[in-house]
Structures are given as C-alpha cells and as structure tokens.
C-alpha cells in the first residue's frame, strides 16, 4: 500500500530548476535510499515533502492525502536533518531535546524507552552541545522516533560522523525497518550502505533517472556507472 506519492514535482528557483517532473511512490515498509550528487535536489525534495517549501508544481501525498490541504500528516513523520544547527551552549539536556519531539506530555515514559533503545540513556542529563556528532545524531533520531512515526525521513544523517557511530546508526535503521516496520526514506552518498540496507533506490539529479528495487539498480553496472559519472562530474564542477 502506498504511503507516499510524489507526482510531477517541479521546483523552480530564480536561476535554476531544482527538481524537474519527479514522480515516485513509496510503499508502507519500504526502505528507500535516495542517492544523487550535491545539488541533485535531494534536500529540496525533502523540504517540499516536509512542508518547508510550498512553492512547487505537482502533488505530494502522504497517507493518501495532498499535503497542501492539511498539515496533519506531519504527526506521522519523524525527521532527522543533515546536521541540526543549534547553539553549542544551548542549555538543554538530551532528555529536553527528545522531549521536544513529544506531542503528548503523558508519554514521558516513552523518552526513557527510546533512549535505552538507542544506547544513550546514560547521556540523558548531559547537555546536547557536549556530545559527539554520532551521539547527537542518535539523540535526534530518538526525538524523531518518540512519537511512533510511521515514516522516518533522514537527510544525509551521517555526514561528518565517525565510522563506529555510522555502523551503529545503520544497525539501528535496519532494526527500525525490519522489526518495527517503519517506512524509511533516506538520502545518502554512501552507495555501499544503500546497497546493504535499502530495498528500493531512487537516483536523483534534478530529474529521477531510476526508481526501483535496489537489487535491480546495483546489479546493473551501467546504471551504477551512470550515477558514479554524475557524481564525479558534480565533484569536478565544484572543484
């Protein structure tokens, strides 16, 4: 059953077309890896899906309803941004941050449960700014999960994090999808990780040039090469 439907999504900025006629469907329980070079429009896509950018053409539906008609769909989503920006000395503990994600104050026990699940319970009274990058990302995952979302959306969540934390992070995602059946939509530069974790892949570079099962993508050398070339061109363009 489809949980997200994107139809003919197009976003124009003054100098560039950020997304051009993008259409795809995400089914319940999918683990979708969105890959693409820098500037491909991944963050723009997420901004539109999350209601942060409403200036687009086309339709975006969550749970069967057009998101332009109501913001209620956000209650079913947990979002982990690329690198959450906050003041290093902001006086909030790990507990405070996860609690921000709670919509219902009577669910406070859920905070302890989530912190234990993500192996950060002993950090609950530490200030968020004191933690390492990997620990902070687990806190933001905890905040995203505390309301039992049906969909978890993550925008390049492991950028700038140590390898050990990345491995732990991926094992958490695997468990969330396989055991708790949470639909995951995740943008990444790590082809190996996408190959191991995701059951579906979407290749984006302003347009969508592949969407389907990850096995099909990674067994097609031509497709993988095409993505790699696009990434290389983008890399060389910026350097």
């Amino acid at each position, binding site marked *: 059953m489809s949980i997200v439907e994107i139809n003919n999504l197009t976003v124009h900025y003054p100098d560039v077309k950020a997304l051009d006629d993008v259409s795809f469907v995400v089914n319940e329980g999918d683990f979708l890896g969105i890959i693409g070079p820098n500037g491909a429009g991944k963050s723009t896509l997420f901004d539109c899906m999350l209601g*942060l950018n409403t200036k687009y053409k086309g339709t975006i539906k969550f749970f069967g309803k057009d998101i332009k008609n109501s913001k209620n769909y*956000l*209650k079913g989503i947990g979002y982990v941004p690329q690198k959450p920006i906050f003041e290093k000395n902001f*006086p909030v503990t790990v507990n*405070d941050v996860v609690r*921000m994600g709670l919509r219902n*104050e009577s669910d406070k026990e859920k905070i302890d449960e989530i912190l234990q699940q993500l192996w950060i319970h002993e950090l609950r009274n530490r*200030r968020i700014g004191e933690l390492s990058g990997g620990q902070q990302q687990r806190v933001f995952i905890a905040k995203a999960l505390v309301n039992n979302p049906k969909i978890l959306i993550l925008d390049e969540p492991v950028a700038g994090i140590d390898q050990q934390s990345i491995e732990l992070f991926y094992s958490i995602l695997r468990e969330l999808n396989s055991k708790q059946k949470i639909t995951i939509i995740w943008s990444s530069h790590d082809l190996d990780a996408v190959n191991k974790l995701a059951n579906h892949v979407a290749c984006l570079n302003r347009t969508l040039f592949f969407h389907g099962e990850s096995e099909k993508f990674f067994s097609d050398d031509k497709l993988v090469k095409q993505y790699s070339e696009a990434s290389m061109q983008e890399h060389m363009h910026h350097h």
Partner: protein
Amino acid sequence: MHRALISGIAIAILCSVVGLFLVLRRYSLFGDAIAHSSFGGIALGLLAGVYPLLTAYGVSIISALIITKIKDKYNISGDASIAVLLSSGIAIGLVIIGFSGGFTIDIFSFLFGSILLVSVDDTILILSLTGIILIVILLLYRQILYSTFNEEQAKVSGIPVEKINYLIVFMAGITVVTAVQLVGVLLISALFVIPNVTAIMYGKGFKQTAIISMSFSVFSVVAGILISYILDITPAGTIVLLSIGLLGGTMGIKSAGLLSKN
C-alpha cells in the same frame, strides 16, 4: 518599600524568563531596542497628557512587531534592525520632548527607573502582566522552546513558528515597558541579559537554567533596592552592578576550574 520589593521581584522573574528566550534567539539587544523605542512612546504620552506607560506599551509593541516583519521581509540582519529601532525611538522621543519644552523629572524617571515611587495601581498592573505572560509561557512552553532551539525542526513537527516568533516579540514589548519602571530605558538590557548569561554557565537543562536565572535576578533586584534605599542612591545602577558582580564571580569560579564545563 513593600510595593517596590514586590514589583521588583515580579519584574526580575519576568525579565529573566522572557530574556532567556531572547538571549538564546540571539536577540540580546532586542530588549534595549524596544526600550529605546518606548522612550518615544513615553514622550508622546507626556506631551498628550496621557499616562505615559500606556503610550509606551503601544509604541513598543507596534515597533517590535514592525521591525520583526521588516527584518523577515527585507532580510535585514538582526543587529542592523536593532540599530534602526534603537535610534528611531530615541530620535522620535527627543523631537517630541523638544515640542513639549525639554526634559522634566518624569523623563528622568523613565530613563533611569523609579521603582521606589511605584503606586498601588502600578504594582497591580505589574503583577497582572507578569502572571499573564508566565502562564502563556507555561502553556506554550514546548512550542516556544522547540522553535527557539531549531526553527526548521519545530516547523516540521507542526509548530506555527512564525506565530510563536511574533508572540515572543509581543511579550518582550510588554516586559520591557513593565521593567522600565525598575531600571529605566538605559539599563533594561541588563535585566534581560546578564542573569541569563550567568545562569547558562551553571545550568545543564533548560528548567534548571531558568530557575538559576530567576534566582540571580531576584537576588540582584532585592539586594539592589535595599542597598540603594539605605545609601539613598538610585536602585537601577545598584541592581545592575550586583548582577554584573554575580557574572564576574561566576567567570572567576569557572576560570578556577570549580565549575563543570558548560
């Protein structure tokens, strides 16, 4: 004296709570800017023969909302918009004072505070406004804290961030004019900023930091009023110097390594 202490304590609590959100949003001088624009409102009230605090409230709130709108619409930086608001308010006040015949004792009391002269009606107004604002903050605590911590994530969670921003600015406007009676237009930012900067060095979580800030603020105000009464000097300067003393002491403790790293 009792009225001064009661009003002072209420203002101390109000300024530290509202000020904490302003400091964390990097609006530390916003209170200063609103206070300077309130000076224009005070001068207008004195000229028109209307109770000056009423015109001050009106002008402050309107100025705060306009500058927030202009900052968002024209993408002017926060510090630049504060500079515009600050100078406009004083300039308008000076021009109006020019028409009204120059500086009077009333003008000085608004510039430097006059808590020892606070009336019963003023005290009731201060306590009422403090109570209302604190209740609003308690009711919307999660939304205000979340949008202060990270606006984008707050929006994604369904919080109406723009409305919350305007609410904060509105409450700041009311708080500033209320606090002007204690420390005056010129020293208002001290009440908003200094106890919070000090508390942030101590507190781990938000509630703990807010409580510490309120404690420092109340101590400075109560001690300041009492000392100034005994020595027959203006309370505003005494209060602010005590507040700065607490900050200095904290920095000393931190330098000596006696405070955990925050």
